[in-house]
């Protein structure tokens, strides 16, 4: 939604731009981890060009800034899109300085990466930027994960990334074997030689995210509890770190099942979100595929409607709450890797998120000897 009252003018590359802040919502929630602007410029007498600029800070930057975007020390990316959401151009910033040119993930007809920029030497870096809503009230602020965006950028002059240049060069098509820079050394790729970046090349992946993500096969051992009124399991191997070395722990999850339609449609204060949502609305916004696939379903009992979910539904909801808790711990605890209180925090956040969609659910540090065990597996590639 354009906020016309806050529009302003600015000159950019010799053109006068009218810039209108956009209020962006995702799943009904306003996104505060990024800022969108409508850019209007005059191309001819009666011709205007409109584009959208998306400004997104990386997770660490946004947390340090309490989710405000700064001008002079901005870490993150700016993406220009047309009104249909097609990528046009973009730039990456570190500490307020441009460090890279964004390039789309599209390939040309030869299945080669389409290059949008010319530079000397460098490497591709894929940045996954996670977005968060930050909702504040008298009780303080809470954070809600709101999805991610992935962009591959061309970062100029990264001499320290030399080993990756070698990989590019080896896999490069078109016979680019080369003279190198002496002694059989590997010559850095450059954008004047696009064949160097053939498909199949290894790309340096730098994931900017609060934690590794749970893989979809995690938690596949949930079991129905008393009279199908809850699903439960002791989950082994939880964490919230990238490359976890410590703080790998276990917790017990109990997910309420068979909840009345009335309770599922009653808005609550939302202990995590501080927004007025009913559990059903929040579930539909967060995990819509569970409805589509029948993993959440309703049935009539004694003339009343109750909501149930399958074992796979329990698995996915538990994964979601664990990923959310991991993000919360990573963002809110200084040096989580060495903080012994983090397990308790993780469990508290995981339960808050669970309760937002399944009232009466529990996550406890103490394991339940009467529940089955199931495992968590993490990877950067799992989403």
């Amino acid at each position: 939604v354009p906020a016309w009252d806050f529009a302003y003018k600015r000159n950019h590359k010799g053109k006068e731009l009218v810039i209108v802040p956009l209020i962006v919502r995702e799943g009904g929630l306003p996104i505060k981890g990024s800022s969108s602007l409508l850019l209007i410029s005059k191309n001819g007498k009666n011709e205007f060009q409109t584009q959208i600029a998306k400004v997104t800070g990386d997770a660490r930057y946004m947390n340090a800034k309490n989710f405000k975007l700064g001008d002079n020390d901005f870490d993150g990316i700016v993406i220009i899109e047309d009104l249909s959401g097609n990528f046009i151009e973009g730039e990456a910033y570190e500490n307020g300085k441009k460090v890279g040119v964004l390039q789309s993930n599209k390939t040309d007809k030869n299945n080669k990466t389409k290059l949008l920029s010319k530079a000397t030497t460098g490497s591709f870096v894929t940045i996954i930027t996670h977005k968060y809503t930050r909702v504040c009230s008298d009780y303080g602020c809470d954070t809600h994960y709101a999805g991610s965006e992935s962009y591959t950028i061309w970062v100029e002059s990264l001499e320290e990334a030399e080993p990756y240049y070698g990989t590019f060069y080896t896999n490069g098509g078109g016979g680019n074997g080369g003279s190198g820079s002496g002694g059989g050394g590997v010559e850095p790729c450059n954008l004047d030689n696009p064949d160097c970046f053939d498909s199949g090349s290894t790309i340096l992946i730098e994931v900017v995210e609060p934690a590794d993500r749970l893989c979809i096969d995690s938690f596949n051992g949930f079991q129905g509890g008393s009279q199908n009124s809850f699903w439960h399991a002791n989950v082994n191997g939880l964490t919230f770190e990238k490359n976890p070395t410590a703080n790998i722990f276990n917790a017990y999850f109990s997910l309420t099942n068979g909840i009345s339609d009335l309770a599922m449609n009653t808005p609550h204060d939302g202990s995590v979100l501080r927004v007025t949502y009913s559990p059903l609305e929040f579930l539909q916004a967060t995990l819509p595929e569970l409805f589509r696939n029948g993993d959440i379903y309703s049935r009539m009992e004694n003339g009343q409607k109750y909501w149930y979910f399958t074992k796979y539904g329990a698995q996915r909801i538990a994964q979601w709450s664990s990923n959310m808790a991991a993000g919360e711990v990573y963002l809110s605890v200084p040096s989580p890797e060495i903080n012994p209180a983090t397990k308790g925090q993780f469990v508290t956040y995981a339960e808050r998120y669970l309760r937002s969609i399944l009232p009466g659910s529990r996550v406890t540090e103490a394991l339940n000897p009467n529940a089955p065990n199931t495992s968590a597996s993490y990877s950067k590639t799992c989403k």
Partner: protein
Amino acid sequence: MQVEKYIDLLSRYYVIMDNQLPIKAELNPKEDYFKLQALTDSYQNQWNQFLKELSTSGRFGRIKELYGSNHSFKVVLHVNAPTDGIVLLVSMIGNQIGMYYSDFNNKPNTTISTSEYKDYVSYYPFSHKQEELARFALDLAWKYFPAFDKFDNTHASIPYCVDMSENQFDKKDLFQAIFSTSIHPVL
């Protein structure tokens, strides 16, 4: 039981930061807390029989057992499904039986400020029917848990905070601490 005694009781299982209100506890329980699981397990048969007799009594609509914690049992009892009911808990901390009430159609006289559903829950019955059925459920609970006391709900809302980290507290109350539960409506 006086408030001080509840605090004393809780301090056996949790690190209480000082004696002032609101009660503030550290996030992680003491080692003794984890020994309560065995005590809870020893009451599992009595709990199952209690649920069975509740069901056969025919006094309640839906009877929904939920997981309490490793020191407590929990059951949701529908009075008029699905709009109102009673939640009954049995805790091994101080051998307590606790109850709270829920009604979607009536506003509570006193709200539970720490609940996400404060318009629909109360530590006091919403109706005479709830009061009567709560008494029935309590008498039945005493049959299987004769050494347990009824938790005095006049102390239920005493603030009890769990220190998560700097300036962050998980806000609960004495009832939620003793019975390890969130306060949700009838489900």
